[in-house]
């Protein structure tokens, strides 16, 4: 994750850069931030504003597009171009913008309800097309703006206002969904881990095509401490699997656990003392086949959060949709006719004098 040079990244070569030094302050709009005090969104906003200067892009060539929900207020707080749209549709709107404006760095900000419930269709199609956009999915496992109903990522059995006897839905794992759609970049990070969050954002920005970053975000009003097991200093080392490309997948407070592929093909967490070093999986985010990344995404327990991988699951090269569109247009411009008058006349016209 550290070997990425954003300045020459194919994702951003068409976006005008600036020589002027930027700071986080340059990306703060004059709007008062109106999330609840203590909301995880503040940390994400600060991380994004703190990280963007690294890219060195002209501020006017950055656009944030959002849907509806608490997270979707994000664009108002960024001193860039911003579009707060309608529920679930931000990936579709961003697709039209990115395809027609290759000189823009386009970011979608969405939540678990916005992206995976009402907007699930647009999300998977944006991912399979591989449009050059970055999607930040704030997952707090609850509906916040509508005041506390269960979401598609809520754990089964969740007691909420709309499920007094417990929710019956089986939950989505956003990383699994994205990998199932063959997304070319899938990462996961946590709102409170600024360094990790920034490193994943950096890699996502450098990736040409759609990057999906799931951010575990705390809603302290309606679902407080949903991710606490992964944040608690005492327990998190035993829960979190930090994926690093090219590194053996080892974790635990004593580096005592490892991920291996079993004889039946499944991927499992084992006590490191039980296996030889050569059995331990080396994480390969660049593997063409998404199968192993998918298997890693299935390790975590949706209730206890045990064995939850974070980091970059997948980062592979596939020509972005908008680049393919431009190539077709350029090919057509070379061979096709740009003469509207002759098009209107067609081949069977006649003249009356």
């Amino acid at each position, binding site marked *: 994750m550290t070997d990425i040079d954003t300045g020459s990244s194919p994702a951003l070569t068409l976006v*005008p850069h600036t020589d002027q030094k930027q700071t986080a302050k340059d990306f703060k*709009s004059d*709007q008062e931030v109106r999330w609840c005090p203590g909301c995880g969104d503040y940390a994400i906003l600060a991380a994004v504003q703190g990280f963007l200067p690294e890219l060195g892009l*002209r*501020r*006017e*060539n950055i*656009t944030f*597009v*959002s849907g*509806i929900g608490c997270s979707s207020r994000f*664009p*108002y707080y*960024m*001193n*860039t*171009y*911003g*579009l*707060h*749209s*309608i529920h679930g*549709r931000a990936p*579709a*709107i*961003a*697709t*039209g*913008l*990115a*395809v*027609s*404006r290759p*000189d*823009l760095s386009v970011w979608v900000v969405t939540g678990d309800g916005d992206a995976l419930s009402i907007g699930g*269709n*647009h999300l998977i*199609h944006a991912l399979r097309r591989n449009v050059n956009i970055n999607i930040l999915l704030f997952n707090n496992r609850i509906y916040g703006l509508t005041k506390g109903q269960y979401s598609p990522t809520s754990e089964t059995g969740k007691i909420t206002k709309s499920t007094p006897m417990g929710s019956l839905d089986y939950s989505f794992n956003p990383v699994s969904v994205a990998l199932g759609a063959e997304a070319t970049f899938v990462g996961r990070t946590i709102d409170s881990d600024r360094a990790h969050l920034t490193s994943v954002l950096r890699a996502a920005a450098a990736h040409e095509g759609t990057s999906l970053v799931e951010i575990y975000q705390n809603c302290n009003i309606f679902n407080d401490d949903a991710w606490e097991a992964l944040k608690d200093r005492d327990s998190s080392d035993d829960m979190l699997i930090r994926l690093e490309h090219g590194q053996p997948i080892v974790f635990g407070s004593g580096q005592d656990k490892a991920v291996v592929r079993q004889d039946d093909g499944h991927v499992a967490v084992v006590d490191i003392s039980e296996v030889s070093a050569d059995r331990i999986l080396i994480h390969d985010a660049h593997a063409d086949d998404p199968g192993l990344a998918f298997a890693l995404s299935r390790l975590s327990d949706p209730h206890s959060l045990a064995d939850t991988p974070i980091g970059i699951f997948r980062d592979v090269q596939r020509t972005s949709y908008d680049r393919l*569109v431009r190539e*077709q*247009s350029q090919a*057509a*411009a070379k*061979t*096709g*006719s*740009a003469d*509207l*008058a002759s*098009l*209107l*006349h*067609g081949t*069977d*016209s*006649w*003249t*009356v*004098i």
Partner: protein
Amino acid sequence: MNPAVPQPTPTAAKGTIPLAQVVIRLAGDSGDGMQLTGDRFTAETAGLGNDLSTLPDFPAEIRAPAGTLPGVSAFQLHFADHDIMTPGDRPDVLVAMNPAALRANVDALRPGGDLLINTDEFTKRNLSKVGYVDSPLDDESLNAYSVHLVPLTSMTVTALADFNVSKKEAERAKNMFALGLLCWLYSRPTEGTMSFLRSKFGTKPEIMAANVAAFEAGWSFGETTEDFAVRYEVKPAPMGPGTYRNIAGNLALSYGLIAAGQQSGLPIFLGSYPITPASDILHELSKHKALGVTTFQAEDEIAGIGAALGASYGGALGITSTSGPGVALKSETIGLAVSLELPLLIIDVQRGGPSTGLPTKTEQSDLLQAMFGRNGEAPVPIVAPQSPGDCFAAAVEAARIAIQFRTPVFLLSDGYLANGSEPWRVPDIASLDTIDPDFATEANHERSDGEAEYWPYLRDPQTLARPWAIPGTPGLEHRIGGLEKADGSGEISYDPANHDQMVRLRQAKVDAIAATIPPLVVDDPDGDARLLVIGWGSTYGPIGAACRRIRDAGCSVAQVHLRHLNPFPTNLGEILGAYDRVLVPEMNLGQLNLVLRGRYLIDAVGFNQVRGMPFTSDELVIAINGILDDLAARKGDPT
């Protein structure tokens, strides 16, 4: 040679009878190639300089079971040596390729009309499929018509005996035999069809040769058979100077969109999802990338308009094309476009509804959906073309309004306009007005501390349009969305007075468009009409034809037709008030009439049909005469 096939007997050169106009209907099974045959006959007719109007009528099923009534596909063509307005009420000539085609269409044929029947398909099995107990060829049920029994299939197979094609392939060429016969009968040229076949089957030389031979065999059969004693001729219609071509509505509409892109200098971005009868717009525009057009086949209707709106936000002319059910899905995004005040075109090629309804049939029942079908007060301008060729100019006009006023605009076409065709005078590109997108490039407001800033909702005082600053413009970074915005600054505002003000401003902006559209001109040649017939969209032709017939019969009637349905032209109220009676024919249950009555407090009456087919001028003449009779009777009534 097959002895069962009647052999043409050479005759002396046949006489030619001049005709003023003819209506031909070709009917067959979905797989018989009737649409192709109709298109080719139309192309030859257009090339001859006749005025013409066409009406394709095909089922929603791609291939319904062969030989059944649901599988019948028909194509009607009206051509004349004078200016005509409709595809014709009733055919003078019906070509029936099988019993189903006969059964479904024979009642429409004018008594005394020519009925050309492909006898090969009149087998016991095919007859029973459509409920004929006895063959209509053997009883007296067709006595009202001039019947021509021609074994089209077997004659085609015989003509192609020496060609390297299978029997099935030979049989499939029967439509070209029929086309050849019709071209002979109506003295049409043949070169166009020949070169069409050569290019269509260029990679299959055997099939190409067989189709050319079938076409020639049909022509020769006409020349030699005794069944047709004469051939007919329809002289070219007088038309004003210019270059003409035949064009269908969806094609003209697509060209209008490309022209709007050129005239505004904006790239065209179409986000669309396939739907009948609008898909041809997506197909056509996808061919024209060299002209600055990008097409995006989205995952659904909502993504289609979403991507189009995203492109508009980025400074393109965003367009989405659909039909009624798709509009229902797009409604929320149209509302967002109203709130964002960005240019966007929504093309609704209307079809029969509700729900899936009649996908391949025409209707005008989305007017109220376009006008009111959104949450909140969300006014959207509406433009409707009146004929297939007019779809070009209507598309340019819709784009002008969208760009100049920063608003989504509905373009309401319909299935009849989409697939019907007519001669169209090709416009001179240089004569089209330019459309200035007038992008904002500078700050437009001074803060109290003297700093210049950009207010995205500081309106033009004349048009009330807001400035349009696109991403990439330095210094004008701003955030907009679907939440209510403060008048001027565009910042989120929940202030009650501000909301009331913004709702009224959005309405006033749409109302202000009326100042930029030409006043309506009433067609009332006698100047003393007491009845006004008012329509919108594709009913222009049938209403116009009916009014002509009324006037030819010595009565007076006035006609006016609406192209702009929101806002209405400024002189509409005055016009409506000037007549004793107002008749509103619509292919719905009275949607325009509801709005006219509500807005202008007039006692307009509707004439309404939703049969999936355009009005005939016959039924409109009856409706108009009914009102004229009533007016005449009341004139003598002292009360």
